[in-house]
Structure formats: C-alpha cells, structure tokens
C-alpha cells in the first residue's frame, strides 16, 4: 500500500470515528422511561401524614447527628428545581468548637414573622395560610433586594439574569402532591424532614437584638420539643424573636460551650449598592439644601435638582423597575414602601414650592423622608445600622452637606459655621455610635482602609476650608466650594463604608470566606 493510499484510508477511519462519536447508540439500546422506585416509600416517612391544620405549619427539621457534610442537598436542590448554574436554595455551613465540628444544612426557615415579606414594598412574598410556606412571587418582584437585607439568614438569593431574587419554597409543588422536597429526597442519611409545627410557640419580645445565644440548641433539647423557646437557631445566628424561624435543629450530642460558626472570624465585604449610596447622599443633600432654602429661596433649584437626581439614580437599583408603581401594597409593613411614598410626596411638594407650597413644608417633608430612609436600614436589625448610628449618619449628612452646600452657593457665613460645627460633631458622634460594632470596624481596618482614609482626609480638608473661609471672607466662595466638594465626596465614602462594612447576620458558613 502506498503512503498516499494509507493516508487516505486513515482519513476514512478518522471520519468514521468522528461520526461514530456523535451517535448516541447506547441510549437507543438501553433507554426507557423509568418510574420512580421504592425511594418514594423511604421518603414518605420523612413527611407528615396529613397537611397542617389550624395553628400549624410545615417546617424543616434537621437531625444534626445525621448531617455529616456530604452536601448532596445543595446539589439536588439545584438539579431537581432546574436552577441557574450558580443557584441553590440550600447551603451547608459548619460549627466548630473544642474537639467538635458539626455541619449544618440550611435553607429558608419559613419564618412565622418573615422579615423578607414584612420588608417587601410590593407584596412579592406570600405566607401560605394553609402550609405556612413563605413563597416568593417571582413575577411580582421588582428586584429591589430589600428582602436580602431584611432576612437574617441570607435566604433570598439575587438572580442577575432575571433581575429578581428567588428563594426556597419548600418545593411546595412537590408537597402539594405528597412528594418530598428535593433536599429531603436527596439526603443519603435522612437528616432533613418536613414536620408539622405548632405556630406561635416563640415568645415575641420587643427587644429584638442581634446577639447570638450559644445556649439556643441546649434550650431546645432539654425543653419540650413543641414548647421549647430557642433564643436563636444555632450559635452565631440572630435571636429567633426577630423573624421566628420554624426550622428545628436537633442533636443528641452535647454541643461544647465554645461552639461557634466556622466563619465567625471571616471579614466579609458586602456589596456597595452604588445606586443606593448616591440616592441616599443626593436626597440627604437635597433635604439639607431645602432647609437652607428657607432662608435662601434660590437654593430650591439646586435642592430639587439633587432630589430628582437622587430619585432617578435609585431606580437603577431595581432589577425590574416597571413594577415599582405597586409600592403602595407594602405600606402597612414595609419601610421601603413608606420611603417611596415619602419621597414621592416630597417631590411633589418641592415642585409645588416653586409656586405656592411653603418651602418650610418641603423641608419638613424632606426630614420625614430621610427618617423613612433611616428606618429602612434600622429595620434590618444590624448593629452597624443601629438607630443611633444611622441617625448620626443620615441627619449628619443632611446638616453637613446642606450647610456646606448653602454656604458654597450663597457664601453665608452662618451656614459655613453650621457646616463646620456639624462636621466636627459628626466626627465625635460617629466614634461613639460605632461602639459594639467590632466586626464592622475590623472590616474597615482590614479591607476598607483606603476609602476610610480618603473619607477622613476629605472631611478634615472640608473643615479646614470652612475655618479658613470664616477667617478670610474674601475667599469664602472658593473655599466654600472646595469644602462642599470635599464634604460631598467624604459623604459618598462614608456611605460606601456604610454598605460595605455592615456585618450581616447569617447562618453558619464554611471554613473560610
């Protein structure tokens, strides 16, 4: 056989092999539409025999003794629910302690008082009256992500492809036909089950705090199963009085006193939320200028400009802004709804102030609107966003930016003085109100030192300029403008840190970030 011929015959073989590779022959030989086998009986033991009655709801129950960290539940949730590549509604974290480790599977706790639902401005959450399942209405969601800030267990997950959040619905469609949720079906050691749980068994106290309670599990174990009052689900999780989660974690092993979330010491930098940073700074500047406009009515133009810029940029934060008109649905519970209402009224009033509405009224409405902004964050139960800290931050910004803006535009020395004083006061107050926020302060030191330094330098520069402006009135306009610019950027930096450094409560996570 000549070389050429051999070459030709090999081409034939290659073509033949390539063609053969594309044939799915084994499938034709073996495939069938298999039926579900005996596993159904196995997992039917993991479901209640009857649906919940009045005063009851479905809940997850996790046997920690059987949860040994294989994490099949996470993968099965993804596969059996057809989720996106990175999506799963279940996670597995870890507790560690003296000679101790315990993996913890976790999904939505289908809380009795779901913070996600309470925070949603458009009622995109529904707590099913029969089953207690907290369901997210994907088509109702406007993608504001407030539920992600409200939920202390990191349950609602952002879906960038759709511009909405999605979350676990306990596989309600499966439960409705007597099938177990994906995670329950997939757990090799039957660690997850669905139980009926009596509702209203958690004491609702007014003092919802964020301190973890190591004794939570112990309390639950020693107490009567149905009437136990855990103060928190697990070590390093938020007090259960905030949302009244319904998941039960049980174990026959004793948990050491030093048991803690494996990721307790992980310093996590949270998303910046640029539209919110700019919206907050601009609207607070606007309200400050609105107050200035009581004395210098010409400022109304700038104040309104800042207001509409702020409101405009806030829309960028919504994944699906076209549904935002439904904001009034949440007015009864959601501070987000109230904020939208307050700023809508303010917008009308500000425009009205050009004709007949008193500027003072707009200024007052502005302060109310800033109050609703503050409440949005205060309502998330995070130490970094405590009432005191947010009041100082938000109203401090109103004062600082309003006064220095007014001073820069009008050259009014009184406002320069107010700006200088409020800057100094803010400096002092900020240190005080951050006490107890160790984790966030560590994040600032370790991860955000550049921006924190920029904020300090700019704030000091602003104050120096303001002091010089008072000393050299001839230069007041230039120095005032410089001070305002510095102050404005410092406030943006401050607000970036506000979002990035917040220590968000969560379920125990993995070993590292």
């Amino acid at each position, binding site marked *: 056989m000549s070389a050429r011929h051999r070459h030709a015959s*090999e081409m034939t*073989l*290659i073509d033949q092999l*390539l063609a053969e*590779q594309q*044939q*799915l022959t*084994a*499938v034709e030989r*073996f*495939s*069938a539409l*298999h*039926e*579900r*086998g005996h*596993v159904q009986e*196995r997992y039917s033991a993991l479901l209640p025999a009857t*649906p919940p*009655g009045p005063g009851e709801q479905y809940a997850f129950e996790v046997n920690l003794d*059987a949860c*040994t*960290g*294989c*994490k*099949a539940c996470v*993968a*099965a949730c*993804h*596969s*059996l*629910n*057809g*989720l996106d590549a990175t999506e*799963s509604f279940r*996670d597995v974290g870890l507790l*560690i302690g003296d000679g*101790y*480790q*315990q993996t913890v599977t976790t999904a939505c706790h289908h809380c009795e008082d779901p913070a996600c639902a309470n925070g949603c401005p458009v*009622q995109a959450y*529904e707590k099913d*009256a029969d089953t207690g399942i907290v369901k997210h*209405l*994907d*088509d*109702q969601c406007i993608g504001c992500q407030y539920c992600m800030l409200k939920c202390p267990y990191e349950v609602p997950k952002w879906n960038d492809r*759709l511009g909405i959040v999605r979350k676990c619905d306990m596989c309600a*469609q*499966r439960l409705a036909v007597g099938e177990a949720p994906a995670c329950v079906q*997939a757990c*090799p*050691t*039957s660690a997850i089950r669905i139980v009926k749980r009596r509702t209203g068994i958690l004491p609702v106290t007014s003092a919802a705090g964020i301190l973890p309670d190591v004794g939570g599990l112990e309390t639950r174990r020693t107490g009567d199963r149905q009437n136990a009052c855990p103060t928190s689900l697990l070590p390093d999780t938020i007090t259960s009085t905030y949302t009244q989660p319904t998941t039960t974690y049980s174990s026959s092993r004793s948990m050491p006193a030093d048991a803690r979330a494996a990721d307790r*010491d*992980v310093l996590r930098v949270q998303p910046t939320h640029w539209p919110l940073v700019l919206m907050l700074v601009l609207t607070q500047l606007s309200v400050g200028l609105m107050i200035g406009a009581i004395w210098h009515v010409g400022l109304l133009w700038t104040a309104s400009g800042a207001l509409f810029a702020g409101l405009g940029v806030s829309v960028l934060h919504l994944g699906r802004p076209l549904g935002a008109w439904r904001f009034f*649905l949440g007015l009864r519970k959601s501070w987000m709804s109230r904020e939208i209402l307050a700023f809508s009224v303010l917008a009308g009033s500000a425009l009205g102030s050009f004709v007949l509405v008193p500027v003072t009224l707009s200024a007052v409405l502005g302060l109310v609107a800033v109050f609703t902004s503050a409440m949005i964050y205060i309502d998330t139960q995070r130490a970094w966003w405590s009432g005191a800290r947010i009041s100082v931050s938000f109203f401090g910004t109103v004062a600082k930016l309003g006064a220095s803006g007014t001073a820069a535009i009008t050259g009014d020395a009184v406002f320069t003085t107010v700006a200088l004083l409020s800057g100094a006061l803010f400096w002092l107050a900020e240190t005080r109100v951050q006490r107890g926020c160790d984790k966030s302060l560590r994040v600032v030191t370790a991860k955000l030192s550049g921006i924190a330094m920029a904020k300090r330098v700019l704030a000091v520069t602003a104050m120096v300029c303001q002091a010089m402006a008072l000393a050299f009135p001839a230069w007041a306009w230039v120095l005032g403008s410089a001070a305002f610019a510095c102050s404005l950027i410092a406030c943006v930096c401050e607000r970036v840190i506000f979002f990035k450094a917040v220590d968000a409560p969560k379920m125990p996570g*993995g*070993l*590292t970030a």
Partner: protein
Amino acid sequence: MRDGSASSEDGDASRAGSEKRQQGAAGQGGFATLLRSSDGPLTQQLGHTSTPLGNLPASLVPTATTSMVCGFCATGCSLKIHLRDGEAINLSANEDYPVNLGMACPKGWEALTPLDAPDRGTTPLWNGKPVCWSTASQTFVQRMKAIIAEHGPESVAVLSTGQIVTEEMAFLGAFAKFGMGIRHIDSNTRQCMATAATAYKQSFGFDAPPFTYADFEESDVLVFIGANPCIAHPIMWQRVMMNQRSPKIVVVDPRRTETAMAATHHYAIKPKSDLTFLYGLANLVIERGAVDDEFIAKSTSGYEAFAEFVKAFDVERVSRESGISVAQLREFADLIASKKRVSFWWTMGVNQGHESTRTAQAIINLALMTGNIGKPGTGANSITGQCNAMGSRLFANATSLIGGHDPAKPEHRAKVAGILGIEESLIHPELGLAYDQIMERVADGRIKALWVLATNTSHSWIDSEAANRALEKLEFLCVQDMYPTTDTAKRAHLYLPAAGWGEKEGSFINAERRIGLVKKVKRAPGQSLSDFNILRLLASAWGCGETFAKWSSPEAVFELMKQLSQGQPCDITGIEGYEMIEREGGVQWPRVAQLRRNWTAMPDEERSEETFASCGATGLLSERRLFEDGVFFHEDGRAKFLFDAPREMPEMPSEEFPLVLLSGRGTSAQWHTNTRTGKSEVLKRLHPAQCYVEIHPDDAQALGIAAQQRVQVASRRSAIEATAVLTSTVQRGNVFMPMHYDEVNKLTFAAFDPHSRQPSYKACAVRVSIVGN
C-alpha cells in the same frame, strides 16, 4: 375519638378557607392579578411538571431515561440520566440499584456539568496550535518511534488513570505493550490503591477486596482506619447509617473528622503510628484469647510467627507511641474480641503511607485471627478511590498481565497470547516500572517520552515542583484529556482531546467488585474522541491495526476480557454482555459461567434453596462476599499473616519544621485535582475557593496566628500561602491541608512504600508562620 373529630373539623375549616380565597381571587379577577401576579413567565421558570419520575422542572422534562454508573469515585452509584431526544438534559439518583438506593453525593448530582465546560478540548493541539487528527496521530507515531529507535523501548512510558472504562484501559495496556512494544505503563491508581492491591495479593493470593456493601449494614462493630467516608464516600456512609444492629462505629484517625464525629469511638492516634497501634491491638486480642483457632488452623498460614512478633507490642509501649491511653486500647481490643461481627475498613490514611502495605496487612491480620472474614458484616475491606481503580487493577495490563495474570508464568503468557492472537514473545516476563520509578527516570533523562491519559501529574504527584521540573525535560509529552487546561496538559507537546464519561461506552468495576455500565448520553464537543477511538486511531497509525482488529468496540473488548478472566478469581465468563449488566443492576465478580449452567441444567423439581447453594448458584446473587468457604487464592488455599517491624516516618518534625502536615480530602465536592469538579459552579460553592490550613488553636496562639489570617506553610521543598483555620479537630503539632489545592503537593515529601510503591502523602514536616514575617 376526640382527636379524630378535631382533625376532621380542621380539615373542613381549611377547605372552606381555601374555597373562600379562590372565590375572592375570582371575584377580583384581572385587577387582582394586575396588582399582584402570583403567576407569569418568571414564576413559570421554576414551575414543575408531574412525570413518572415525580415532579421535575418543567424546563427539563425527559422523554426517556437510562441509568449508568457515576464517573467519580469507586462507590459506583447508578445515576438515572434524563434524556431528551437521546441526549442527557439532567439526572437523578437511581433507586433501583443495589449500591446507592436512590442517593447520590454532590459530585454525582453534578456529573453532567463538567461535560459542558467552555474549556473542553475540541481539536488536537501540537505545541498549542490546533491540528487535525491525521497530523496528530502521525506526529504521535513519528515522535514515539523516533525516540524508541534512538533510545530503545525503555525510554518511553505511559501514565494512565483509574477514570476511564475498563475496555479502554485494556486497549491502552495492550497497545502500549503489545503494539508499541514498550514496558513501562503505570497509572494514578498507584497513588490511591496500589497498597490495597499489593496487600491483598500478598495476603490472599489475589487482589480481591472481599466485601459487599451489605456488610456495612450487617456489621456489629465497624472499624474505619484512615477513612473519612462521611465526605469521601457519602453513599457508603448512607449504608452505615442504614445498619439496624446499633453498631459500634470506631474511627482511627489523627483528625477528628466528620466520620470521627459521627462515630461512637474515636482514637486520634499520632500520625503514622498506625502500624504499631494495630500490632498492639493484635497483641491485646491474643491476650484476651479472642482468636478464632479453628479458622486460623484451617485457612491461614504464618500465625504463630505473627503471634510471637506482636508480643513486643505491649500495651504501655503502644500507648506511648500512638498517644492512645492504655484504657482506650483495652476498650478497643474488647470491641474486636467481642465475638460479634467486626468489619475493618480502610482507605487513603492507610494506603498513602511509608509502610502502608504492612499496615493494610496488619488490618487483614486482625480480621483473619478473629475469623472476621467471609461472613456477613465482616472483612478487611479496602474502600477504593477512583471509579475504575478496580478495573485498572485487573485489566490495565500494568500492575499485572492483563486479567490479573502473572507475566512470569509461562502458562499465563501462553493463555493471554492465545486469546489476544499475539505472539507470546511480545509479552515481557517482567512488569514495568512503577509511577515513582518512571518519574525518577524522567528526571534523570532515561525516559524521554511520556504519554499521560486522564490524570494530572503536575498537580497530584508528590513533591510536585520536582515532578514538574522533571516533566520539563521530556522530549515528547503527549497528554490525552478532556481539557487542554489541566496543569499537565498545559505542558504537553501534543494534546489529544478526549471524550468524557457520558460521551462513550464501557464498564467500570466498583469497590465491591461490581461491574457497571457507562453509556453514551452526550455528544462529545468538536473533534474530541473517546479514548477507545483515539486508541483505534493510534493503533492504526502505528501500523498494528491488524493486531487489534478484534478490538473494534468496547463491547468486543468486554468479550476478550471475559475470555481472559476464565479460571481466574475474577472470572466473569458468566456475564452474557452489557444487557445482562444492565438487567441485573451491575454484576459482582466472580460470575462464573458454569454456575448458571449448573442451576439451569437442574430439573425443576430439584431446585430448592439448598440445591441453589450446593450447586454454587449463590454465586448468582446480587450482593456477594468472597471467602465464604474459607479458601483463599494462594496455592495452599490459605491466607498469609504478613508483618514487619514499624519504621519511623521518613521526614520527622524538627526544630526548623516542627509540625506534621497531614493532607487529605477537604470536601465531598472536589475530585481528582478538581479538573472536572472545578467546572461546576454548584460544586465550587461547597468548598473554600482558596487554600487553607487547619491548625490547633494552641499552636496558632504560640505562633501568634489569628483565625482567618494569611499564613505561610513551608517544608524543605517549598513554601505556600494559606488561610489559617483554627480548630482543635487537628491535634497539637499537626496541621491539615486539603489536597485539591494544587499548591499543597509542593510541600509533600516523596517517600514510598517499598512493596506497593505508593507515595506517602499523609505526613511531612512543615512550619507555619504569618505571611510577611
């Protein structure tokens, strides 16, 4: 009665409630929907459809299903592949398979995802540039032949894998040895199972793991030594959890692992004190008079010498050297001496040691002396690592002559040559070099060409910087893999794109000797070809197409494997073909043709449970263990007691490197240098993205290391960075790092067990310091 009436009222109330809501919704009509849409295109994305398989995502409803064995670990779970138009779209765990009973670990659930990775190889690459298969195969042949012509056949070696189907392994081994005429072929099974294979071969006379998974459920005392099945083999752990006999579960492991947490007894021995510890236990068991004299007399040899030998391992010495108290040692010995069903299970903690073969045999000895073998819930059982390590051990033509034969035996050579239709002179009477010896010769330049298939030497070989320096010296490195992006493939002169699991046919053999099927349920991307087809192409290009004319398809090779197995302990002549494997839910070896004939030839009226057993037809059962008759595979039918004096670990901690680094599996979600598992976003969620080191809080405090701080871990070989995790699940003086971060093997110390040549990954000396200090 009261409860009953109450619940019926509840039911009525709840029905009434839902009716009212429905009426309300209907009454408000379109306006309600406008205000609040509980359905729509986004909601429907997560909608379910009811199918015979249960509720499934509406977007992923299959038109058919087929089941196949998972391609990650040796548990050998069956996955039910959901097909649409013949192609896989999703999967679930198979309920009707005796291995996994409807469960899978995260790797199994994500088994299809790595096939769709964007970095799949779609064309051969020559020096990084795409070439056609014709050029690639000619290049392969020309380069290999030129090097053989110049430096001899000893200058070429193959490093293969436990990840491809047995039929491909057989073809590769036959082509390399009988086609290319080279001798050195080894595989990454050397890194995981060589010790178990060697230990069994020496002790039992054949590489024969004796157990079946039902033993997990039927045992009274389960002893796990150097094994962490909770995360390494979660589906085997499922079987442990299904045990209804309230078993004692003993874990022997320096770390307080997930399995140690779940056990009833944990003995945290000092690293590499296992051999002393096990000899001490044997001594205590003898002292208790708990040996099975009858079994020893009938079925073993060498017991007296062993009993004499272990006398030196008195309980105080063992306590001192292992760090386990005398009371605990006695407690453990009592469990073994309990006369209940005791099963011993080991994996990498034993296999990857400097005296691992003797350690595995110390476990085997415990089982033999107490008669805990060949009965339900007993055995000295190696939990295998890779999906087809067992296929490799028998049919890869590397560590034995194909089919578990001994090339030194003329009758074996004649048999193999006859079945394969080759000249007997093509069969070298000596086996080739082991992986470490091949790497040594690569480093010193004696081996010039290396062909690597479906393994990632650059990452996984011990002391990896030295290994990579060696690979740089090669004149010709050919890597055949699914991805041109593995650490090793990136160094290749010639890259051949391989189809993966799910894109080809063949069979795997799992840890309990069960042969299961792999099927073609996806189209391989671009021009990638199955390893089998690449071998057909290369054999043809080499000019030995005639020799391999019989090797036309995986199933044709399976027929050859059957013939080769005849008369061997791994006899599979009773397996008719792939359909039978499918029908029976996998078939364990041995499966001898004669058994079925005996049974079917029997007149109907004579068939009973008793005659079923007497004619040997129990060999047809789905779950079988070996050695029920107490007869082993040595010529005298006896198992051997084998032992040696323990040796100090090769690299002891020193003042400069005071800590012992233990490496191992950190998560169930990573596999095999993460080449495939790293393609799944879901699996990536399940482990830290960056390398970490677990260190005892006391050690950390002494070094001034805080939790989550970046630290440097240094050995005599290299230094790497990691995040410090403070946990007392590691002992003082030890640190642990997961092997799936590629930098970890830069630290490990290249020591090898002298019998199995398996690398000792589990212990080397390191120091830890704060980065920047």
